[in-house]
């Protein structure tokens, strides 16, 4: 490995409350703004960028546009000729793009890579968009002819918890309430101005309809348009950049650990396979523990913040015990004790997560990594967790099929 250390230089997130389809914008417009904003945020010299990696799930379905890497060459005349590529792993597309960028830097192929996660989703109504999302599962087996397949799959995750350990839906409501409350502190969060309280999250009715089983509207992340641009760099580049910014290199966050696993795509098989396991989703757990191990992190209590993939309240419920905040099946204890709240022992999703901040599918993993950067550099504004130095993020694709966990930290 030529460059073991991979640094995060910062980036930019678009406002996830925006409706780019209503603005009649092309998906490349969103990428362009994220790129432009990232240059303003970081002061990187565009001529230093050696490659662009794009995370996107379903541009072809939502907006009849593939080959997204190619648009990067339009953003600056200096980019004509640069290598670009697009990565897809359902909702984990963003993290996979970052993971590949990391590998390219470690291999010494490039020293500064622009990673963009992007998804334009509001082009489709909820039924059609829900059907598109079904392609992240085994479409023929799990989604064909089924309305809103993913809420159903993640409803089944809650059902499995209920079967194995018992699950009171009030804890799911509390997860929704916390994420919405956190989003109010995030100026780029989709739901920052939406009303929410515990009672609303509990009630079923006109404004909080049941999607499937225990999953109501407030248990779901919403359809979101958004893009995030982030830079990963080698130690040599990071040192040069730190000098330019008047910072010691030790203050620049880097990826200190990662884990990447794939489980069988079919949800029923995942559950059948884990029947005798301690964890409901052992491949998700493995991605986390692999990251712990690579980062030299003993357990979750070495972390200061977690940004997790709460596409549904049940997925955050799962993440709580899979990160090890509680014993398997006891996630409710961390919720009851306030552990995951912004001032708790280990805050989860101070950004609002997918439920509060939004979930533009291909952008989510990059957004989580950017939020890890912001927390570590003390630039998260009103959602800053004081003193955060080590931050983990979990980005999952499909029904926890592709699992990517990054841990970011600084050396001092």
């Amino acid at each position, binding site marked *: 490995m030529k460059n073991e250390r991979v640094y995060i230089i910062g980036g930019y997130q678009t406002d996830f409350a925006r409706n780019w389809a209503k603005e*009649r914008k*092309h998906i490349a417009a969103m990428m362009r703004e994220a790129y432009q904003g990232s240059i303003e945020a970081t002061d990187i010299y565009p001529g230093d960028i050696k490659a662009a990696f794009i995370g996107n799930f379903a541009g072809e379905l939502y907006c009849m546009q593939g080959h997204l890497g190619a648009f990067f060459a339009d953003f600056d005349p200096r980019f004509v000729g640069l290598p670009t590529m697009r990565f897809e792993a359902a909702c984990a597309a963003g993290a996979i793009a970052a993971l590949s960028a990391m590998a390219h830097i470690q291999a010494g192929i490039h020293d500064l890579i622009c990673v963009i996660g992007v998804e334009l989703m509001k082009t489709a109504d909820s039924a059609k968009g829900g059907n598109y999302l079904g392609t992240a599962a085994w479409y023929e087996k799990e989604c064909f002819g089924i309305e809103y397949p993913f809420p159903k799959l993640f409803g089944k995750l809650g059902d499995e918890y209920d079967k194995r350990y018992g699950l009171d839906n009030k804890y799911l409501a509390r997860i929704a309430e916390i994420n919405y409350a956190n989003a109010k502190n995030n100026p780029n969060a989709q739901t920052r101005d939406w009303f929410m309280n515990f009672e609303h999250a509990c009630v079923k009715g006109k404004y909080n309809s049941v999607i499937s089983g225990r999953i109501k509207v407030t248990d779901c992340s919403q359809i979101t348009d958004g893009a995030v641009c982030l830079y990963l760099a080698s130690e040599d580049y990071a040192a040069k950049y730190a000098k330019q910014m008047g910072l010691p290199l030790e203050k620049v966050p880097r990826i200190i650990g990662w884990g990447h696993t794939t489980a069988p795509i079919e949800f029923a098989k995942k559950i059948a396979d884990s029947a005798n396991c301690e964890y409901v989703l052992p491949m998700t757990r493995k991605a986390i523990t692999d990251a712990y191990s690579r980062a030299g992190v003993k357990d979750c209590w070495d972390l200061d913040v977690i940004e997790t993939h709460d596409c549904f309240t049940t997925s955050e419920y799962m993440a709580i015990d899979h990160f090890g905040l509680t014993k398997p099946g006891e996630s409710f204890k961390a919720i009851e004790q306030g552990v995951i709240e912004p001032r708790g022992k280990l805050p989860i999703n101070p950004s609002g997560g997918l439920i509060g901040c939004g979930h533009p599918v291909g952008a989510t993993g990059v957004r989580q990594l950017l939020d890890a950067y912001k927390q570590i550099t003390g630039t998260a504004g009103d959602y800053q967790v004081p003193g955060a130095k080590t931050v983990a993020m979990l980005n999952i694709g499909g029904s926890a099929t592709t699992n990517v966990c990054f841990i970011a930290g600084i050396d001092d």
Partner: protein
Amino acid sequence: MSNQESYRDNEKIKTVVVLGASGTIGSLSGGLMAQNGLKVYFLSRTQQGSERGLQKAISQARSEMIARNVICGDYEHLLGQAISETDWVVEAIAEDVKIKQQLYERVESYRKPQTIVSSTTSSLPLNELIEGRSEGFKKHFLSTHFFNPPGRMSACEITGTEFTDPNVVDFMRQFLKKRLRRAVISVKNTVAFAGNRIAFVLFSRITTLASEFGVETMDYLIGPYTGRLLPPLATLDLVGLDIHKAIIDSLKTHTKDAMHRWLTTPGYINMMIQKKLLGNKTGCGFYRKLESGKFVFLDPVLCDYVPAIEPHVAFVEKAKHFTHMGMYKEAFETILTAQGKEAEVVKNILCAYIAYSYSLVGEVTDSTTGVEGIDKVMAYGFNWAPPSVIMEALGGSEIVTKLLKERGFAIPQSLQIGLKSCFNITNSGKYFVAK
């Protein structure tokens, strides 16, 4: 306890009374208060009116839960109890000085000494509203001007009179920002404050130009691609033509500046008001939606509706394409280099927007905050690209100065200084819409 001490705590306000809760601003701003955990009395002339207001607030919040924080009633039965209990009275009744004065007199007889009273008006002289009120009332009186609809427009202009205790204004500024999540803009006590003063001068000019170019073409030329979510005449349909005329009349009476000449109400607007073609509230105004879903447009000469002509102007289409691709500077470069009378109309309106906005820095907002206050109110109150961003899109102050000179606009001093703003093209992309 001194005022300074008593106004330090954001929790000071626990109960609010909204007067005029059947109307849009009253019900929806009251809804925001209920959403944020305050106990809110919704009062209007009738119980049913207040309950209708609550339904609007529920619809805005998309939750019936907020009803738990709301008590509906009418002035006759609940005013005394509600006012005597409340910490803040928000008045959002009809824009009529006499009616407001009469209600304030009743409020005064019940209010606690520290209760704050604010009006949501921006077009009526605040000092007239409080004529005859006590010193204590006047010390606690100010304007909190919400924009419509408050659930989507976060701007709130705030100002007191010369009688208002500055601690009350400071406290409310913080309260509106922190508890009600408003983008608070401190304005001076001048008629129409900042947002309406700027926007309605431009609206007025556009209604005049519509006599020549037609309604559909004017909204096409000054459409969303020029930096606004809604075209201007469609916006006036939302506002209501009667309200539009009242604001123009008020500006004509109370302002004297370089743009005063643009404050006219063309004859066809008066005709529309006579015919009750007031906009969305009467079902038709500049636009009328047919059963087929298609729109017909008012012909200012005939004062009747004519079918759509679907204008197509080459530079507009090219600029819209650049906007579609997120290339806003290129879109404005296209406008700038275009020739012909349509292009001149667009350039003239954009120039007027910048010139007038910058000329009011210091007059309607504090000069120490630069152009940012005006930027904020235009962005968060109207969903328009802020004037400083339009200037950036056109190529910066040097180019804009030249454009203004060519068109006979005075060059505002604040434009030459080069004022900073928190807005730039990158973070204002949402205001450029490709249609």
